[in-house]
């Protein structure tokens, strides 16, 4: 049997369940998204959305994504519909999507509103905390008719997250400075999802109380905060050059103790199941800082 036939058989097998269950979910903007049938032509408007859809078992229903949707590897082969901050509306419509997964803070508001006006079913996504990730998986799975796979992925995520939290959250606190950008120096406050990972690992974001989600800092502020560990992403998945700039400040506790850590940015900065990989790595690094 070909893959297409398999897919059709799978869809047919789900129809009785679909007829009973209401295929409605609430999205992160508080709107109710309802579909008559499981979505079969899904367009992902952010790299994170593509990743969440694949994790929810709906990967073979994703027909297009924005540029930089690079995980899992299958997502790289998808047709592109522009970049997340400038969508090609024609290319989206040409895919005849029966579900579009948008990104509230990343996609242009006017373009999402236009999709609404054109009656394209739109799920607006914005996971702000770690528990939002499995919840999103479940909702996307429901819309795509892959609720079972999504539920098991969500359960795995919750179990793994609980385990990490049980191991590390109550350990001796480590004061952490997380750097998301080098010029200007930028960090995150406690509202940002990276801080949730830091908390799970028993860390404490030294700039957590700042008002803005991604505050810009001068170096003095970092010297004054004197973190016990500095963690950074970088321009690429293996580029730890941002950390070198801190080494000359020998007064920093983090420098004295050698607690300058690199965690690949895509594993910690994207609100997708892979965040657990990054979080686990962060936890191990902070544990190293405790010694």
């Amino acid at each position, binding site marked *: 049997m070909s893959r297409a036939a398999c897919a059709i058989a799978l869809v047919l097998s789900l129809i009785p369940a679909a007829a009973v269950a209401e295929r409605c979910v609430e999205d992160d903007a508080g709107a109710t998204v309802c579909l008559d049938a499981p979505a079969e032509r899904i367009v992902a408007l952010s790299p994170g959305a593509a990743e969440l859809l694949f994790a929810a078992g709906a990967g073979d229903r994703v027909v297009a994504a924005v*540029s930089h949707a690079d995980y899992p590897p299958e997502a790289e082969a998808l047709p*592109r*519909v*522009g*970049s997340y*901050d*400038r*969508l*090609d*509306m*024609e*290319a989206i*419509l*040409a895919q*005849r999507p029966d579900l579009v997964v948008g990104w509230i*803070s*990343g996609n*242009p*508001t*006017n*373009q999402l*509103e236009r999709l609404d006006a*054109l009656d394209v079913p739109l799920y607006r996504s914005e996971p702000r905390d770690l528990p939002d990730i499995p919840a999103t998986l479940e909702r996307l799975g429901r819309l795509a008719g892959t609720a079972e796979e999504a539920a098991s992925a969500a359960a795995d995520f919750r179990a793994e997250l609980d385990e990490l939290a049980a191991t590390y959250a109550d350990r001796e606190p480590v004061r952490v400075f997380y750097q998301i*950008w080098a010029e200007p120096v*930028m960090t995150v406050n406690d509202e940002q999802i990276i801080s949730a990972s830091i908390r799970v690992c028993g860390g404490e974001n030294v700039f957590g109380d700042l008002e*803005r*989600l*991604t505050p*810009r800092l001068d170096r003095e502020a970092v010297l004054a905060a004197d973190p016990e560990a500095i963690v950074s992403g970088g321009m690429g998945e293996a580029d730890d050059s941002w950390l070198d700039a801190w080494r000359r400040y020998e007064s920093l506790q983090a420098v004295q103790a050698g607690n300058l850590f690199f965690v690949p940015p895509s594993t910690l900065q994207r609100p997708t199941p892979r965040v657990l990989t990054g979080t686990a790595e962060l936890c191990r690094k902070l544990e190293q800082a405790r010694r």
Partner: protein
Amino acid sequence: MRRLVPPLAVLAAAAIAALAVAVGIGSVPIPPAALWAVATGGGEPLHQTLVLELRAPRALAALAVGGLLAVAGALMQVLLRNPLADPYVLGLSGGAAVGALAAMLLGLGAALVSGAAFAGALLSTVLVFGLAHGTGSWTPTRLLLTGVVVASGWGALVTFMLAVGPTRQLPGMLYWLMGDLAYARSPWWALAALGVAVAGAVPLGRSLNILARGPLQAAVLGVAVRPLEWGIYVAASLLTAVAVTTAGSIGFVGLVVPHMLRLVLGNDQRLILPAAALAGGALLTLADVLARTLIAPEQLPVGVITAMLGVPLFLYLLHRSRG
């Protein structure tokens, strides 16, 4: 009047051709037969949506915005008797930008962003008007200076908002500042404003021609200079406000299209103003087609293209006119 007709007919044909190209070309190829089917009220639903919901409104908005900016630029150049004047020289786009970016920072929807831009543009107009009016004598120089300083003030506020804005909103804000027809919603207001402006300005063409030579001569020849100047200022400001509200602050069209037309057609406002409406509209419509398709599915801001198309064309005309 008869000599006005041929150039306008050529420009009207160019504008219509530009519209046809804009409706026919996009990142999704649609064969001519399918386009014809849509034009005659049939066709596939997908093609109908692409042509009628996306391309046609955007093309008409580009035509209207380009026309508005070119007409507003031509009026400002007459008013200030300064070849460097453009619709934004008196700080109007700055006021609109402050309004729009503030609305974006507050996370408001697209309709409110447009409303805030319009309010900001009007606020800037009233501010410059009031400050330049002040006490004592009024001159275009004083108006220009007031406008330029107010514009700097808006510029500082824009930079401040970009600096404190959330990182994820920066691309949207920058695209708005560069001008982007993806923000265009309904083209009808802009088209109506353009029609009213051209219909209203052409009968005043003779007076504008005299004013362009200087206020003293105009006063001697019986033109009511002060009311005419304020009228031009208010009209040009409103036109620019509508344009900026529709598509962000698109540069270049308002500065250069009137000059290009003067180089080719001479400086008769009765001809220049309607010609600017058509030529500005055609230029921006074509520029937007390129912005949508050059590196599709990635999209460029249209301001990049207007300058890339317009700069060589203008330099060529300027060079030719000297020889």
